[in-house]
């Protein structure tokens, strides 16, 4: 991701496809080969989405009997069924997920930006130790930490609350790492020194100068963290017992695991899965433009 954002200054205008053609390479077999590979990749990624879309239009009996990719007409009734489940609990899960991912993502961006900026722009004792510890943190999968985090939060009686999911989501080693790299590349020391000479306080420098310059990188961190929390299963699954606090992932899994003696609610789960990716798609479409804007270039060159 960093490479995309850093290389963006090469094309200050919006068109991304332009430089490829401008380079004047013959559009022969190699272009066809590339397109084919990309098409296969796109099909590989989109096919499951198409499946979910088709399956969510089927009634319970059609789901197992009709052709897999053939659409049907029950999408609306599936959505009403899902919404009716335990007085609209699904929508509560949707709001919970938005809360966990939105607030968790923003707080994580704030912490990552501050930590990354500090690590990139200040010299202090133990800096490399701290950075190495964070780098090591990138390698530890979050799943491994879920149980220790549960035991710690249980000690202070915070399991089964919104905080149980929010607090562990705030620290993202990868986000800090990314913010550090981005701050080092996008925030020129000259600008900071100029600001200091003008008498600006460090807090003001950070919020008024560094954060706007780091914005494309921070949007990336936000999107990563937002998606990671949105899709997180293990942490909320362990932390939460109250189903009114569940995010979508845990709630939908519960609809499938009803125990051997009860039918699994396949159609509701599939419809729920479809609805749960809609906000993600919308978020990506609205925020992706930030990746094409590079404020750092403007700060120095303009």
């Amino acid at each position, binding site marked *: 991701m960093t490479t995309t954002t850093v290389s963006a200054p090469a094309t200050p205008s919006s068109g991304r496809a332009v430089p490829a053609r401008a380079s004047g390479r013959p559009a022969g077999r190699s272009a066809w080969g590339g397109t084919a590979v990309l098409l296969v990749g796109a099909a590989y990624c989109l096919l499951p989405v198409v499946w979910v879309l088709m399956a969510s239009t089927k009634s319970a009996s059609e789901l197992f009997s009709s052709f897999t990719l053939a659409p049907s007409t029950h999408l609306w009734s599936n959505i009403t069924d899902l919404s009716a489940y335990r007085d609209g609990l699904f929508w509560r899960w949707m709001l919970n997920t938005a809360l966990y991912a*939105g607030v968790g993502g923003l707080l994580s961006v704030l912490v990552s930006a501050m930590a990354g900026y500090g690590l990139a722009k200040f010299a202090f004792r133990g800096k490399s130790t701290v950075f190495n510890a964070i780098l090591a943190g990138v390698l530890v999968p979050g799943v491994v930490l879920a149980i220790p985090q549960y035991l710690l939060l249980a000690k202070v009686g915070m399991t089964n609350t919104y905080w149980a999911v929010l607090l562990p989501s705030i620290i993202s080693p990868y986000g800090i790492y990314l913010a550090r790299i981005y701050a080092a590349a996008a925030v020129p020391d000259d600008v900071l020194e100029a600001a200091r000479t003008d008498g600006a306080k460090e807090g003001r420098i950070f919020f008024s100068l560094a954060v706007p310059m780091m914005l494309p990188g921070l949007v990336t961190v936000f999107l990563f963290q937002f998606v990671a929390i949105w899709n997180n299963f293990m942490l909320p699954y362990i932390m939460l017992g109250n189903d009114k606090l569940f995010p979508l992932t845990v709630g939908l899994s*519960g609809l499938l*695991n009803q125990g051997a003696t009860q*039918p699994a*609610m396949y159609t509701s789960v599939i419809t729920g899965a479809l609805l749960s990716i809609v906000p993600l798609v919308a978020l990506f479409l609205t925020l992706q433009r930030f990746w094409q804007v590079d404020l750092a270039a403007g700060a120095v060159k303009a």
Partner: protein
Amino acid sequence: MRLHTSLKVAAVVAATALLASACSSGGSGDGDGKAAPSGGATPTDPAQKIELTYWTWAPGMDEVVKTWNAEHPNIHVTVNKQDGGDPAVTKLLTAIKAGSGAPDIMQAEYQKIPTLVAADALADISGDLGSDVKGDFSDGTWQSVTLGSDAVYGVPQDSGPMEFYYRADIFEKYGLKVPTTWDEYAQVATELHKKDPTAYLGTFSSGDAGWFAGLTQQAGASWWGVDGDAWSVDIDSAATQKVASFWGKLVEDGVIDNKPMYTPAWNKGLNDGTQVGWISAIWAPGVLSGNAADTQGKWKMAKLPQWNAGDDVTGNWGGSATAVTTQSKYPQYAAEFVTWLNTSAEAAKLLVSKSGLYPASLESQKTALTDPPEFFSNQTDFYTLASQISKTVNPFTYGPNVDVAYSAYNDAFGKATKAKSQQAFLDAVTTMQTTTLGDLKNSGYNVKE
């Protein structure tokens, strides 16, 4: 450019903040309710509302509990629906180890009770129960909540006596006779598969250890045993081997399917009539109506085939008790609720209609189950037959490491069903025995060999 962008960001931030505040205000009402139990250790007001949380995965349970809450304004029960079976148990055990976070009341499957008792997760409520509760249940059912001791670790809720379900229309079409012995079952399976090579009389499911345990229970097996203060493991008994070798032969001959149940493929089979029979339990109508709604009226239920003609025994698959956890601050009130839930006529009616459970209480079986389930409206004697069958369940003892035995079953029989060989089925039983026995010893239990 910069102004433009930061404006946009401000808008996004504002929108998210709005959303967040909307959510947290929605959640705060709930937070107030949840705060009560922890603060309730020293009640300031004698009329204070007791808050109890209840982990269950039975559908419709919040509607059952609503009735209790309306009648008991001072003892308020909140249902927290969980993932069924193992996940809920794992979560409970984690909370017990952590020292907080467990609910007051917990749905506990019969086979999990020894595990939960061994982890000190379930409270002994013998002192909080009325003396008449025991008489409401059959001895075998009651034994599974006492584990043969004087303690009582829960009140039985539902049970799962096993039966044979079959597609009456397809049986008629091919002129098949409903099997009464396992020999006949094998014959019918062969005959059916010959007449329609895509159809199977059933499947051997390597994903459902409880199902296999129930079948061996019918044959007289009991996988664990208690001898004084020592456990024993008896999975590779002659009875289990008899069952394994019977099914191994059918799978080897290819007349019985080898795919697990509860998969999309199996559901498809139920819908399109290639799964012609299902060895299941009393709760099967709920699953069938959920997974194959269009086949309503085509199924019938019969007694499980017997090993010896003239016998009348069955096994148990599924069913659970309602237990009080050791972390509950109000075990006496929790016990009061649990008793109401599982013995009162009022709750029994709701459990049957809202949750689709087959009550374990003998009295409730008589009063609450009159009409056949809607899916089996063609079989008017459904519950009369079911109540006869439920009296014939063989005894069976579960041990403290059922999870190990069951996952050994999944692994070993998963391979055996793929290998499609009778010998592999017998080897799988041996593997289960070795794994389970070894684990019990390693866990530090007193084990008798």
